[in-house]
């Protein structure tokens, strides 16, 4: 790992050394109110018999923090020789913090990773391949299907262990559907049927037929996945599809629905963006359908309150296409290449994956567990929403499309600097024709991708 400390880091090392020489020699023994020892001090202390330290970092909300910390305490009971030091934050903060730590060569042993970022981190050599730990049995995947692990594999090596399986899902308010006198759609419904159902719901009930970001990049990706293609080419240097017609048709439909008031306009979406799952129009009864990631159904149901009935249906697909759904790892645990204690890290990840008691604490909060033994053990303890999620994942498992390759290294750049500002927003705000929109996406995305891949 030392050879990574090249260039930039060395420059700072020298500067910092010069600096520390003239820094106040005996820094005051500041007494931060809680235990203010540095991490090294904690490890050296070893008052509770721990001989090694394991650092874990994740993002989440209160519920996840509580459960994860409880599971960590269980792990420490089982492995008294390991002291687990943890740090948690919200989503944005997690990445700011991890990025900074990476630059300082100070990453934790285990970090929670995201599918959209995995390639970015692997390509910079910041994550450690886990195959050796799988081979020696530290990571035991006997009860795990290959498809559940596939998302963490890049260039043939495993870089992240899936912490829960997710898939996108259309949530229909069953009572509204009945009120409108309409039938639930088939699992393999098309966009045309989707548009028709949303239109009828809107016309019969006077509320939004559907709510949720249909211009989201996720749906662009799903569209081409369903057609057996992928939005990026193999080396991430350009778009991976030739035919713009499906996108043209799809965006045309979304615009049509917006203009007819069947779904919220982009303007309304923007005004409400950043709102949480809890703020969805379906919660307040102002919309009859929405889409979420399957694990978000728990939050949606909780916010909606008692006595609501939600129906789960797979995402619609283009005419003649395969499923637009795939099973996505909700998040991963990865071992960083700066880890000081990778062996304990692997044990910890295995514990998270396979330990029944731990998973009874975690209660599938990160998505449907990948181990079938864990799933079976949790079944009797699930609440209604979780039961629905487990059933949904089980039902679609056999018919979903294979997981697409991880996003190109230039993905974040494409989405933030091309997809939204130059493509989708100008189109949905009526500043740009559909044809121009699709053309600009191709031109600009290719330019950005070529540059990112060339670096």
């Amino acid at each position, binding site marked *: 790992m030392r050879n*990574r*400390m*090249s*260039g*930039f*880091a060395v*420059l*700072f090392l020298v*500067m*910092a050394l010069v*600096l520390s020489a*003239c*820094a106040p020699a005996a820094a005051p023994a500041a007494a931060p109110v809680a235990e203010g020892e540095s991490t090294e001090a904690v490890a050296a202390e070893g008052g509770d018999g721990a001989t090694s330290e394991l650092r874990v970092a994740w993002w989440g909300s209160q519920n996840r923090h509580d459960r994860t910390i409880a599971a960590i305490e269980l792990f420490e009971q089982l492995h008294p020789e390991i002291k687990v030091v943890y740090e948690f934050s919200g989503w944005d903060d997690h*990445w*700011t913090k991890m*990025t*900074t730590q*990476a*630059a300082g060569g100070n990453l934790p042993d285990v970090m929670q990773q995201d599918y959209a970022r995995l390639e*970015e*981190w692997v390509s*910079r050599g*910041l994550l450690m391949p886990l195959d050796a730990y799988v081979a020696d049995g530290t990571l035991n995947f006997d009860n795990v299907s290959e498809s559940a692990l596939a998302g963490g594999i890049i260039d043939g090596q495993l870089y992240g262990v899936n912490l829960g399986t997710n898939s996108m899902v259309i949530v229909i308010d069953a009572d509204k559907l009945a009120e409108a006198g309409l039938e639930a759609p088939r699992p393999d419904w098309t966009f045309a049927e989707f548009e028709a159902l949303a239109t009828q719901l809107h016309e019969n009930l006077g509320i939004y037929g559907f709510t949720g970001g249909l211009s989201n990049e996720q749906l662009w990706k799903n569209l081409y996945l369903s057609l057996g293609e992928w939005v990026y080419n193999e080396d991430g240097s350009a778009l991976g599809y030739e035919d713009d017609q499906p996108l043209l048709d799809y965006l045309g439909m979304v615009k049509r629905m917006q203009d007819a008031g069947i779904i919220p*306009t*982009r*303007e*309304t*979406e*923007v*005004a*409400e*963006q*950043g*709102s949480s799952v809890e703020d969805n129009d379906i919660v307040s009864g102002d919309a009859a359908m929405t889409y979420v990631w399957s694990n978000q159904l728990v939050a949606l149901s909780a916010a909606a309150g008692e006595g609501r009935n939600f129906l789960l249906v797979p995402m619609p697909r283009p005419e003649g296409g395969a499923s637009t759904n795939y099973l996505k790892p909700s998040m991963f645990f990865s071992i960083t290449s700066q880890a000081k204690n990778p062996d304990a890290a692997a044990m910890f990840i295995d514990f998270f994956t396979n330990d029944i008691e731990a998973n009874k604490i975690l209660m599938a909060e990160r998505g449907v567990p990948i181990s079938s033994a864990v799933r079976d053990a949790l079944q009797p303890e699930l609440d209604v929403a979780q039961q629905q999620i487990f059933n949904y994942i089980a039902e679609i498992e056999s018919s979903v499309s294979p997981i697409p390759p991880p996003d190109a290294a230039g993905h*974040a*750049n494409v989405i*933030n*600097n091309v997809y*939204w*500002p*130059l493509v989708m*927003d*100008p189109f949905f*705000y009526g*500043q740009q024709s559909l044809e121009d929109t699709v053309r600009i996406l191709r031109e600009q995305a290719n330019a950005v991708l070529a540059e990112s891949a060339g*670096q």
Partner: protein
Amino acid sequence: MSNALPAPAAPASATAKAPTRPRKRGGARRTDNLMGYLFIAPWLVAFLAFTLIPIVASFVLAFTNYDVLNPSWSWVGLQNFERMFTRDPRYIKSLQATFFYAFTAIPLRLAFALAVAMLLNTHRRGVSTYRAAYYAPSIVGGSVAVAVMWREIFGADGLINAILGTDITWLGNPNTAIWTLIVLAVWQFGSPMLIFLAGLKQIPREFYEAAAIDGAHGGQQFWHITLPLLTPIIFFNLVMQLISGFMVFTQAFIITGGAPLDTTLFYALYLYQRAFVSLQMGYASAMAWVLLAIVAVMTALVFRSSSYWVFYGSQEEN
């Protein structure tokens, strides 16, 4: 003639009341390097130890393609700067949004702060309650709760539409979104207001008493005593609001994220996105230095102008 007041503006009797000890010209100009450096030593040490290196580093990185995660980088010369002005439409939009914000929010905020400070600079009953009420919005800061709150107030069926009887998606409409952030900035006007208040409190009571005896009241006192004596504080608030106005980040970060159509994509927000989302720290560093240049020029202009309108009790040149 007194040195404490701008002579042409002050009523004669007020000037007469002000201290009139003659000034020793030589004393004021004397330099005292040892004491000077001794007094600024705390700042100088902290600056050299903790701030200088990051500043130099960011300058160096402006000419590289450093991406934070990858420790190896290469020199790209002026390419970052060239891209900014020729191949980055979002950059231009971020400049537009920032200048628009700076030139509307700053004057509004300062005017409002000064007006309220004047209103609250009195011994009327209940004024401390008012002072607390007006300052309160400024302490809610930039938490997630504020984002939800602001979106709610400007929402389709929120307070603002209810009051105005309109049906505008304030945060979604490219013509109105930036105004919600300007209103937020004006609403949180507590810090300049408090500084104005402290400045008003520092104006010696004798000046007003003298002016009152002289028959000057209300508006005259304001123009001839309050305003001139407050100019150092107005100057300070102007400079600081100018700088922080160009650095505006948090509100857009938590509420709009730059949307709609990049009309609220403030410079610092775009810079943050480039640095930590697209991982282009080299480019972000280049952007930071251009911003520094812009703000430095604007600040220098204000400083230049200050000799025409800022009056110091100590009458030194700045």
